[in-house]
């Protein structure tokens, strides 16, 4: 476990085991918010931010729960922390950058139910990462998520002009494109290993 270098953790979270395309975490925003490139990018930035904060918070909580010997509270406290982090971030952005707040709109509160965030907290606990490793892991996962989202949005913007059969319009087409993207990301297997 301790032999993994920070660089490898980063590569692993962002490319090799991309959260969206290999672990299927955060599929809802991947399908829902990937219609336009600009919104996809902003959504990705917000997710990176929330991921970093909640990953650090989850590390502290895990240590505390081990200390008080109550591991069954793990899930409940993680979800509460994520929900309150999102709330805090929302208030923070509203106070310091109203324009960004307007641009993010409904996506900000929706981050709470993004499984990538909770998944990140659970994975880092399962893998036994220390504080710095957790931070790098969160950064990698967030960048990987943004990468997948932006790639998808770029493809879908082009697909809007393509002629597709009526039967494949909508989610089915997005899923097919996602499958092909996932195939290409398999090419990263073994990288940095």
């Amino acid at each position: 476990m301790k032999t993994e270098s920070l660089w490898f953790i980063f590569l692993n979270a962002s490319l090799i085991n991309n959260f969206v395309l290999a672990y299927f975490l955060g599929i809802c925003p991947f399908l829902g918010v990937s219609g336009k490139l600009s919104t996809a990018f902003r959504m990705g930035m917000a997710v990176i931010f929330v991921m970093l904060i909640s990953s650090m918070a989850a590390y502290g909580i895990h240590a505390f729960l081990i200390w008080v010997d109550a591991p069954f509270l793990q899930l409940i406290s993680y979800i509460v922390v994520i929900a309150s982090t999102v709330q805090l971030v929302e208030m923070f952005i509203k106070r310091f950058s109203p324009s960004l707040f307007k641009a993010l709109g409904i996506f900000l509160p929706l981050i709470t139910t993004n499984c990538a965030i909770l998944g990140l907290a659970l994975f880092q606990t399962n893998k036994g990462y220390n504080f710095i490793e957790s931070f790098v892991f969160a950064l990698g996962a967030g960048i990987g998520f943004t990468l997948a989202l932006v790639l998808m949005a770029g493809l879908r913007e082009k697909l809007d002009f393509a002629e597709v059969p009526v039967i494949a319009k909508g989610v089915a087409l997005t899923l097919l494109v996602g499958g092909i993207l996932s195939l290409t990301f398999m090419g990263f297997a073994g990288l940095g290993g």
Partner: protein
Amino acid sequence: MESKPKGKLAAYFHFPQGDGLSTDEFIKGLWRENPVLVQVLGMCPTLAVTNSATNAMAMGLATLFVLVMSNILVSSLRNVIPKQVRIATYILIIATFVTVADYVIQAISLDVHKALGAFIPLIVVNCIILGRAEAFASKNGVWASFMDGLGMGVGFTFALLLLGFIREILGSGSLFGVSLFADSFQDWVIMILPSGGFFALAAWLLLFNGLKLRKKETQPEQSREEVLI
């Protein structure tokens, strides 16, 4: 469905008086408003754990349990929960039942628990459950909510099994771990890899879209509205 005047126990639990209402709540989740195939919700577990039929079954049943229990509790507490903190309360209720399900699965089968990994705790953020709590259980009686949760849960399990069957048969040449073909069968390894999940679900959605389109063509007047939904 309108809510009946409050105060009476019968109205609170909303037992239907033989109008077939609760059967409709059940069927709706199973087919017409199937959470995965029609509403396209709860994609993460749908794609992640359906690489074998056993995993799909376990995930479906765990979600069914959480969905039914949280629907019952949310609906029986619906007049007590303050409007402002309702979402947080729902999430706490759901997280509690997910923790129960997590420990139960661990006790029943450690292998399944290991195979599903972090995806059991991730049931908390399955949008189907929070969606039903907010859209249905918070407005309807306990009995109707129970049927709704049951229907949606069974519909979810059904969709997961559709995917699990295809992916396990093609990807490993077996079903529920029982080998189906002779040794000459070449496994489609891609089906149990992540991209196989995308392709299998896309194929099912294409099929369902096709069925919907055909229905629209055969009965153009009557069911246009229904097709749109």
